[in-house]
């Protein structure tokens, strides 16, 4: 694995001047992943913050070949791109031994919801690519609507906390498990605050033949109602409270890659976020403890599977 100094020596593949918000969690994720690839990278993006923010015409922040076609088909697009490169190699237009990496990016809306079928298809066809989902927990680009990745009780513009309901009523979809069920060689959850873990997993995922997947926690000052400077701190808290466990499933074997020495109370992650403000009203104490209990049981389930063949 590359050290941070080695990563810093590599070329900057995502330029500044993109229009993502101040304090956005997405660019560090993209920068770390692109630098961890040992070789040229071709990327696609689903419609979403990353796509809109980095490619406002006639500008692009990408210094690699990059394509966007629609919201739902980042994985299908990269499938086609990967196949086209394979055809070009066959015809001798690209040297057959040139190792080109393919990465598809999508937000949680473009992955958990809208792009799920194209992701599933690409995984099943065993295309040689890495899919990266930056999960900020709602449709932040279009105005903070709930997605199937939105945390329980989160206030969004389509699950507003008010007199009738206290934010989103449903537990989030566990996409990483869905991907694991496609029997992929490598799938993992990561967070940008732990750049070493993210870089190591990206390097591993890109070295493997076949479809691989990273689900990355991506703090969003806009939709979380948080301060821009706290983004990375909040990513760390999501992991230290075990809301967002870091783990990997390699060839079906589960490994929890980070176990906090001291598991922090979930409230420490929720409290600084405006989207959970209502949970700290005295009358909602039961909701907060229900949320904590669910996080505890999910964490326990994961710990029980640690080191075991799960698929």
């Amino acid at each position, binding site marked *: 694995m590359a050290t941070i100094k080695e990563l*810093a020596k590599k070329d900057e593949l995502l330029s500044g001047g993109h229009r993502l918000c101040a304090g956005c969690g997405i660019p560090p994720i993209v920068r770390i992943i692109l630098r961890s690839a040992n070789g040229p990278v071709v990327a696609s993006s689903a419609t979403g913050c990353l796509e809109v923010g980095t490619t406002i015409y006639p500008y692009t922040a990408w210094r690699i070949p990059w394509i966007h076609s629609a919201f739902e088909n980042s994985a299908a697009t990269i499938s086609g791109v990967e196949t086209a490169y394979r055809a070009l190699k066959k015809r001798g237009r690209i040297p057959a031994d040139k190792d080109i990496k393919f990465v598809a990016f999508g937000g949680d809306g473009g992955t958990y919801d809208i792009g799920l079928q194209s992701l599933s298809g690409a995984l099943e066809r065993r295309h040689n690519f890495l899919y990266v989902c930056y999960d900020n927990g709602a449709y932040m680009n279009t105005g903070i609507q709930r997605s199937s990745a939105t945390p329980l009780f989160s206030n969004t513009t389509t699950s507003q906390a008010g007199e009738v309901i206290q934010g989103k009523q449903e537990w989030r979809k566990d996409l990483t498990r869905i991907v694991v069920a496609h029997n992929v060689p490598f799938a993992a959850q990561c967070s940008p605050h732990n750049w070493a873990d993210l870089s190591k997993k990206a390097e591993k995922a890109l070295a493997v033949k076949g479809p691989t997947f990273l689900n990355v926690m991506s703090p969003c000052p806009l939709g979380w109602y948080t301060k821009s400077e706290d983004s990375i701190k909040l990513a760390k808290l999501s992991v230290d409270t075990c809301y967002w466990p870091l783990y990997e499933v390699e060839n079906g074997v589960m490994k929890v890659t980070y176990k906090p020495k001291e598991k922090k109370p979930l409230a420490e992650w929720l409290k600084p976020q405006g989207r959970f403000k209502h949970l700290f009203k005295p009358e909602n104490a039961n909701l907060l403890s229900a949320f904590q209990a669910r996080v505890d049981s999910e964490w326990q389930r994961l710990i029980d599977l640690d080191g075991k063949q799960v698929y």
Partner: protein
Amino acid sequence: MAEHKKLPEGGVIEKGGTAHGYSTGGWRKLRPVVDLGKCTNCMICWVMCPDSAVIVQDGKMVGFDLEHCKGCGICAVECPDKVKAIKMNEEAD
């Protein structure tokens, strides 16, 4: 020919990284200032910067790209507690 008809076919952007020529420094309310005497070149600010605006030369942090820094303040918060070499100052000062 009308200007809009000169666009490349398919709206392709023919050169990479052109956003570098677009300034987002004007978004900034707070300006990061580094004390290079305190900096240990751990590169944490560089790796966490959303705007690729921490300048690294020969393995050393040398300053900020203020054309692109949006002043989010992540660098100042993430600079290790024992070091704290980065301060955010009011842009107006």
